[in-house]
């Protein structure tokens, strides 16, 4: 199905005032950058929270800033909750999809903007409100919630008697997440419509850059998953404020007092609803990174993507299977052991498309001539991290083994490597690659490489030892190691991890400096600094308001035409007119 760019005619003209241009902008490029800045703020906030946690874990009696002295266990859990929530929602969902996707999906398919520019603006500002509401939980008297980003009921449902932060803080969290769901639904609709309707002439589905495939499937996941979480949050809010009992069973006892106002609810219902969203969410975070990695590996190995169709199939396969495996988070929850059997096998099956992608990445590199730009190094790091983080999933997918590893540091290691750090490497790869297009100037490559090395070594030093903590049985979400005797010998590992975290987090300041410095003093970027093939490189850096300056966009070939023999150049852009490309083709 090939549609003409006519359908995507601009419904709005270039704004002139500051507010319409930069604040309430309808331009997908400005909105993309707004999302990226929101994610940049959030990632530093989230890292600061994790730094406080790490310092407390290594030196539990140390007096800390912002904590009013030695950290209390409830404050530690508030940090756990807010770190997870901010990172998952405001960084991993926001930066790769809403940020880079917003900016580059329309340009890569040859559209002038997203299909619904006003909806696009609304979805950003709704996300912004969601961040404000969620973060405001820090400032209510009892503090932020302590039930983790998973907000398991009844802990999250019964209010203050379950602990500090479970009053107003938890309510703000639920409302914040619900608003985020609404924002994500708007964004997902926009992405899907844009990709289906606004592709330029000649941009058939099988000529799409893999980044676009990833954003497309991610948007479908978002559309199906966030609706369920929104409903779950609405029910939880009703339980908390309106006296309903969707999740709260009868006869609960807190400090010898029976909670008489509720009966008949099911704690497992929350877990099912949450993980029906929560597992696809993992792929919402990582699929765009996979698309970016494929794109970068091909561009900088100067070779076509190995097995393009298999890659598309794998993205779709992961997207579909991603909805069939949520129960693997619930092997110890008390759900039927027979369903655990099915969830386990389906989870093992999802390893197959993941493996296909890894093989194809290696196949893409094989026989290439690899250029080690900072962007490429992050893409290579992504592959390494994806393998490492993915393989530990094979342990956790087996219910027998999960009975030991569930809720230990083994799980913390697993999901941080695959959905946290690998996704972040995808974001960094994308940032070093597309920064010149977005801001018209190059990021400093030398600083980029230093940033890569410190981050790559650092994240492995942080997260690999956590596997061993998990094997030794160390539970996650423990405020310190003093409560259970067998944890005491593990304390030196915590100290090591904390040193690694301090260095790795400090190294991100190099990136921040590079980002800000290069805005003004970076080397001027040409239209196509990487000799890449996709449509965004056919336009000036940064692109004009309507992306293509009114030009008629036509696409003549697939997205990864690198290394074809018999040409003066080693690449043929998608937009190069066949009559002007040399005869040898």
């Amino acid at each position, binding site marked *: 199905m090939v549609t003409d760019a006519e359908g995507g005619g601009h419904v709005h003209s270039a704004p002139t005032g500051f507010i319409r241009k930069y604040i309430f902008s309808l331009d997908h490029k400005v909105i993309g950058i707004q999302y990226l800045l929101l994610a940049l703020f959030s990632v530093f906030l989230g890292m600061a929270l994790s730094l406080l946690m790490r310092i407390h874990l290594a030196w539990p009696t140390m007096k800390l800033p912002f904590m009013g002295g030695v950290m*209390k*266990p*409830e404050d530690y*859990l508030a940090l756990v909750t807010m770190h997870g929530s901010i990172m998952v929602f405001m960084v991993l969902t926001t930066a790769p999809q809403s940020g880079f996707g917003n900016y580059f999906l329309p340009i890569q398919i040859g559209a002038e903007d997203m299909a619904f520019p006003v909806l696009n603006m609304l979805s950003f500002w709704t996300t912004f409100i969601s961040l404000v509401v969620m973060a405001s939980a820090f400032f209510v008297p009892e503090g932020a919630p302590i039930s983790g980003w998973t907000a398991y*009921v*009844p*802990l999250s449902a*019964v209010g203050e008697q379950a602990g*500090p932060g479970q009053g107003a803080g938890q309510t703000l969290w639920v409302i914040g997440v619900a608003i985020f769901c609404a924002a994500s639904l708007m964004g997902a609709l926009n992405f899907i419509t844009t990709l289906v309707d606004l592709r330029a002439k000649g941009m058939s589905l099988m000529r799409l850059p893999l980044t676009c495939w990833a954003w497309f499937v991610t948007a479908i996941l978002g559309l199906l998953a966030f609706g369920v979480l929104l409903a779950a949050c609405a029910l939880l809010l009703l339980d908390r404020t309106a006296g309903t009992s969707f999740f709260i*069973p009868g006869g*609960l006892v*807190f400090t010898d007092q*029976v909670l008489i106002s509720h009966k008949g609810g099911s*704690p*497992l219902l929350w877990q099912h609803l949450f993980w029906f969203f929560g597992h696809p969410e993992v792929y919402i975070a990582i699929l765009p990174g996979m698309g970016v990695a494929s794109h970068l590996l091909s561009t900088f190995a*100067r*070779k*076509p993507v190995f097995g*393009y*169709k298999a890659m598309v199939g794998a993205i779709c396969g992961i997207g579909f299977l991603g909805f069939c495996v949520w129960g693997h988070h619930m092997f*110890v*929850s*008390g759900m039927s052991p027979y369903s655990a*059997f099915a969830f386990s*096998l389906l*989870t093992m099956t999802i390893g*197959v498309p993941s*493996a*296909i992608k890894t093989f*194809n990445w*290696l*196949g893409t590199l094989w026989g290439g*001539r*690899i*250029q*080690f730009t900072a962007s490429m*190094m992050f893409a*290579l790091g992504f*592959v*390494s991290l994806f393998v*490492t983080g993915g*393989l530990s999933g*094979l342990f956790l997918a087996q219910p*027998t083994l999960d009975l*030991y590893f*569930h*809720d230990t540091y083994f799980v913390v290691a697993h999901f941080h490597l695959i959905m946290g750090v690998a996704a972040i490497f995808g974001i960094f790869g994308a940032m070093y690659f597309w920064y010149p297009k977005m801001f018209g100037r190059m990021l400093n490559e030398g600083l980029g490489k230093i940033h890569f090395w410190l981050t790559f*070594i650092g994240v492995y030093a942080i997260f*690999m030892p956590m596997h061993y903590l998990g094997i*030794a049985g160390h*539970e996650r*979400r*423990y405020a310190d190691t*003093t*409560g*259970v*005797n067998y944890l005491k010998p593990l304390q030196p*590992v915590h100290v090591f991890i904390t040193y690694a975290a301090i260095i790795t987090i400090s190294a991100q300041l190099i990136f921040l400096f590079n980002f800000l410095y290069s805005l003004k003093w970076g080397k001027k970027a040409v239209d196509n600094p990487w*000799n890449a093939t996709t449509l965004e490189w056919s336009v000036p850096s940064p692109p004009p308001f309507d992306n293509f300056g009114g030009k008629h966009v036509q696409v003549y070939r697939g997205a990864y035409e690198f*290394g074809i023999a018999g040409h003066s150049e080693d690449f043929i852009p998608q937009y190069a007119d066949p009559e002007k490309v040399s005869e040898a083709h």
Partner: protein
Amino acid sequence: MSRKGPEQGSTTVALALSLFLLIFTAITVYLFVAKTWWFPPAITVEGHQFDAQFSRTLWITGIVFVAAQLGLALAIFRFREQGKPVHYFEGHNGMEILWTLATFVLFVGLGLYAENAWASVHFIGAAPGALPIEVTAQQFAWNFRYAGPDGVFGRTKPELVSASTGNAVGIDPTDPFGKDDVVSPGEIAVPAGREVDLTLKSLDVTHSFYVRELRLKQDAVPGMQIHLHFTADVPGTYELACAELCGLGHYKMRATFLVLSEPDFEKWMQQQIAANQ
């Protein structure tokens, strides 16, 4: 237009990156072999089955891990920019089919293999004659109830729960079956070599029963009664810890888990009965 720049120093970068992957892989493998931080010894038959399945999974993932990381390192070094043209190809259907099938058989086969151990714990309940023990979790304590000589637990009611007056699980004094029930706060004992049938309950929020040496974890969910059965073979003193986030005291919600020889278990039980009088 010539492409200058990226190939400059690419050998150094390629070498450094490949070496790093090599060293990283070696350290990871070493730490899994050295077992510096490792499981405590298992004390049940199922625990040994767990160890065997862990070992199988570790071998398979270990081989894939080493092959993939070293394959990546090799590709990075061998195919670094050297000014030579690339070897153009877009893929290979035969190889796609081969590795799709191979990983499917390997991963799903591993999953199927593991199901036996899962079924033996969860598809069947405890055998008749297993010792019933009721485990009641609450913020942030564990209480263990034994049925006493009559072998039947007395009725409990939430409104009777009163830790301060010694009725931590809310036993109904009007129920004759409850008269001989024995409640042990913070310490559970099981006889070595005899199967026990735990009933997990929670008074308030979700907790999780976790004993490393049993290789078992099971949530205690309010409103549900979840069974867990095992036979511990090795007498000793172990620790039970809460593994599901339950509030500010989660990190210290522990209990002592004793596996005692039959005579020691009887002795322990007499002490509990005396303490419950």
